[in-house]
């Protein structure tokens, strides 16, 4: 069966520091990968998605970036964090190219920027 791992689960970072969140999917190949952010009291915002290695689409302009160095690995990064980057970050995956594909989520990472 497929599993998704996301880490770290929680982190507190000072303003201006770098960020790296990592996500890996097991049990499937060539997944679509996603990074969502959920700010306090708000819904889910799609940040990035990837349909293959090195293929990244950005949905929201910001100081975050994403990379996909391997088929089942997706990394969310920032060179300098802002206070507004605080939130709950969710990695997710799906397979296939149709719009009816189910998206499965990881357990999330809490980021607090202080």
């Amino acid at each position: 069966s497929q599993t998704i791992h996301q880490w770290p689960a929680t982190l507190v970072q000072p303003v201006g520091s770098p960020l790296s969140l990592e996500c890996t999917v097991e049990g499937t190949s060539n997944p679509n990968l996603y990074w969502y952010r959920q700010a306090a009291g708000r819904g889910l915002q799609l940040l990035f998605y990837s349909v293959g290695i090195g293929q990244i689409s950005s949905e929201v302009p910001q100081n975050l970036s994403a990379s996909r160095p391997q088929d089942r690995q997706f990394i969310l990064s920032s060179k300098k964090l802002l206070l507004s980057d605080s939130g709950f970050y969710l990695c997710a995956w799906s397979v296939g190219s149709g719009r009816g594909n189910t998206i499965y989520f990881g357990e999330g990472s809490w980021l607090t920027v202080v």
Partner: protein
Amino acid sequence: AQSVTQPDIHITVSEGASLELRCNYSYGATPYLFWYVQSPGQGLQLLLKYFSGDTLVQGIKGFEAEFKRSQSSFNLRKPSVHWSDAAEYFCAVGSGSARQLTFGSGTQLTVLP
């Protein structure tokens, strides 16, 4: 562009009572619709999904949802709520070529003993 509206930000029900969470969507073609549940500090878990066919969809944990094209709605229901159902619920519509989901803003469910 597609959109999803969940008009109720917060709903409170008593344990054992029935539940209906509302979801309205806007999408130009036949929608693919989903309901997810999120417990505090956790990821999202898929409850059910509608792709085609029978407009009444059964999901996990005793939930069901009914697709009504004429009303552009996909409301989630449960006949008898349990305390463990307290969570946030998200409705979503499958987007086009981007293989994405567009989410509603969520409904927070509180269950009273």
